[in-house]
């Protein structure tokens, strides 16, 4: 009964992983009258001497470093806000969740419009007397703009996950805490926070992997510009592999990326493991 899934997983997951490994050491192209040849580590030497790669790597890491704490903290805030006895709380939860079910393609097009130099966001800022930047056209703000929008889109998702974590915490603990005269902050610090340990690990790892895979938003909104300030490793891989048809070189980028994600995940697992 495991057979169909096994065949499919091997064909479309394990073999492509193996191919990434193999093709990375060749000069294979998507189409070429010349057969692919083994070229050793040429692709890697080329990659490590490519400024764009280092910039892309820097942006990818920066994006992850910023968005992981910001998005998880804000999502936790949202979860706490809708985890109360109150009328209409379901309505709020639904609204916060709306961006999650909207596709990233649509969200990117929408924010592309909102972020224009004289777009909605800057017009609103102007009302408050602030001159907004050319969000996506300025190397200093483009990545920030993409971070804000990505956090906005995914926050509801992690809110729900925090919420499910919050609801595994027994009510008796809160009751005991309030009998001991603990303040709301103390309740959060000594009851809620420790109770969310597993949820924290999960959220940390999923946001990190998603952050490293940043592609769609950038592809639609900035194509990696201006000045490579929003280029990411995946965007670079897709550009070289698909638009420029260099399957071998793109596989090398994918491989480096894969190793990177693996290392980060292992480190995170190690630091969030059960402290025996």
């Amino acid at each position, binding site marked *: 009964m495991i057979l*169909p*899934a*096994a065949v*499919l*997983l091997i*064909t*479309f*997951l*394990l073999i492509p992983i193996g*191919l*990434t490994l193999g*093709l990375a050491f060749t000069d294979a192209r*998507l189409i070429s009258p010349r057969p692919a040849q083994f070229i050793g580590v040429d692709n890697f030497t080329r990659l490590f001497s490519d400024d764009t790669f280092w910039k892309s790597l820097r942006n990818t890491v920066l994006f992850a470093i910023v968005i992981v704490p910001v998005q998880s903290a804000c999502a936790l805030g949202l979860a706490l*806000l809708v985890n*109360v*006895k109150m009328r209409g709380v379901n309505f*709020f*939860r*639904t609204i916060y*969740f*709306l*961006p*999650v*079910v*909207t*596709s990233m*393609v*649509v969200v990117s*097009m*929408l924010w592309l*419009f*909102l972020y224009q130099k004289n777009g*909605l966001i800057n*017009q609103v800022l*102007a*009302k408050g007397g602030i001159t907004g930047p050319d969000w996506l056209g300025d190397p200093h703000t483009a990545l920030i703009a993409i971070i804000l929008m990505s956090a906005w889109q995914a*926050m509801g998702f992690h809110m729900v*996950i925090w919420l*499910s*974590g919050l*609801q595994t915490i*027994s009510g008796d603990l*809160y*009751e005991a805490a309030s009998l001991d005269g603990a303040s709301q902050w103390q*309740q959060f610090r000594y009851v809620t926070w420790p109770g969310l340990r597993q*949820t924290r690990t*999960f959220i940390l790892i999923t946001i990190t*992997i998603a952050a490293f895979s940043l592609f769609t938003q950038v592809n639609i909104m900035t194509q990696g510009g201006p000045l490579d300030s929003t280029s990411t490793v*995946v965007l670079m*891989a*897709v550009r070289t*592999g698909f638009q420029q048809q260099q*399957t071998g070189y*793109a*596989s090398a980028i*994918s491989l480096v*990326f894969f190793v990177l*994600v*693996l290392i980060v*995940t292992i480190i995170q697992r190690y630091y969030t493991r059960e402290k025996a």
Partner: protein
Amino acid sequence: MTTLTPVAERTATENRPAVDTQFPVRRVLGLVLRIVLCLVFGLPLLFMIVASFKPDTQIFADLGGIRSFLPVGNLSLDNYIGVFNRVPFAQFMLNSVLISVVTVVLGVIVNSMAAFSLARIKFRGGSFVLGVILATLIVPFETLALPLLWWVNKLPFFGPGGYSQGWLDTYQVQIIPFIANAFSIFLFYQYFDSIPKELDEAATVDGAGWFRIYRSIVMPLSGPAVATVAILTFLPTWNQYLWPLMSVQSEELRPVMVGIDYFKQLNVSWGQIMAYASMITAPVLILFIAFQRAFINSIASSGVKG
């Protein structure tokens, strides 16, 4: 260890901290905060829908005022008519529906069967297989897209039309690679694991084979898991962009997300983009509003991993 206790169905249960009743000020502030956040998350989408009924000149004229979010002024269906003139919208929609439905249905069947054999049959090496499956969860699809493209182009296909070489530009290239899914198997596995094993033993005594146990005992009890997997398969399938962009060229096989590209040419009409975006978002939004609980619960249940 997770239980699929529905998050949405717990109204004021005892395990929620009660809101402070002594400080009305704080309550008011809390409410204001919640409402402001509502605006932050809701307004951009509201803007999209409202703008889709306005001519471009008015969209720009309204910017920076409350009018951006109100259906006022010169409203019409012109943008929608424009969309239908510009792209074969019905065809795109049909493709997306077909691809999503088939992927979801086959995904539920294939992944639940795999999870069943891992969780209930317990064959030798099962835990190793499960380990491999879980390990692949950290592989982002984007890294595999390019080798996969190269690879599916070499695969044979045996259909009723006979033998053909290369999968590019077909329906199956948009469906088959996404049927088996490690995460779905994992979710089913967790759920099946929590169903008492005594049921199997009783059925075996009655002479039932594994397949019958799967079909008549385990699956009927697993409604919530099926819903979860269905939703978590449907969303990314409906929203696919990179893969169909690369693997499909024929207009008559394209899904809705790729259609956005048709509007990024010279003389961008933002009104039409908003109309198209509203139309391709509508099905998901409607499903979400209708099955809110299932949606939220499925996301929630995916969250707690051991």
